[in-house]
């Protein structure tokens, strides 16, 4: 594998450090109530629903694992939690 030029390495490192900082900024900090309500447009609901669907998929996969069943329907969401 060709070694990177020193500048490339520096840029790569800078990128990693920046990425780490941004991950912390976006994910951490004191959480205070009163955050802005995101307007609930149709598409927003879709995103929310998807998370519920995925939760069902996770449950389905766990059942799959324990049942050692070879068949799994990817998009069967199973029972939605209320």
């Amino acid at each position: 594998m060709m070694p990177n030029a020193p500048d490339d390495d520096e840029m790569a490192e800078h990128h990693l450090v920046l990425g780490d900082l941004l991950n912390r900024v976006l994910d951490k900090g004191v959480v205070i109530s009163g955050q802005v309500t995101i307007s609930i447009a149709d598409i927003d609901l879709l995103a929310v629903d998807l998370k519920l669907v995925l939760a069902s998929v996770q449950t389905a996969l766990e059942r799959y694992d324990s049942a050692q069943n070879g068949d799994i329907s990817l998009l069967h969401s199973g029972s939605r939690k209320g």
Partner: protein
Amino acid sequence: MILAARTVMSERDDPIAAPSKTSGHEAIGPASPPDIALEALARALPDRINADPEHVENGLARLVLTVIELLREILEHQAIRRMDGGTLSDEQIERLGLALLKLNERMEELKTTFGLTDEDLNIDLGPLGRLR
């Protein structure tokens, strides 16, 4: 570096849908593959899906492909566990592997069709891997 989109929701919204306020990142320990991948997926979902009619296809494509990519990874992970577990016949292993290989190829085609890279899909790649 891939950045996860964050959804900010008020307390009046559905509590199931609200993102967990304390992310579980601090603890490093064994976690089941679906948990980690789904957490990654939840973070990767774009906050705004462009509803502009001209671009709506692309926005939805990104969303769908993101979901499928992560599910595909979960399935590969599960398939290997089954293979290693010794509960599959040679024929089953071959069928399973082929199905996943085809799925992989199909995903590459779809990504090319929509001009989307893994970065566009907010999927993190790297030598330390994602599922654990």
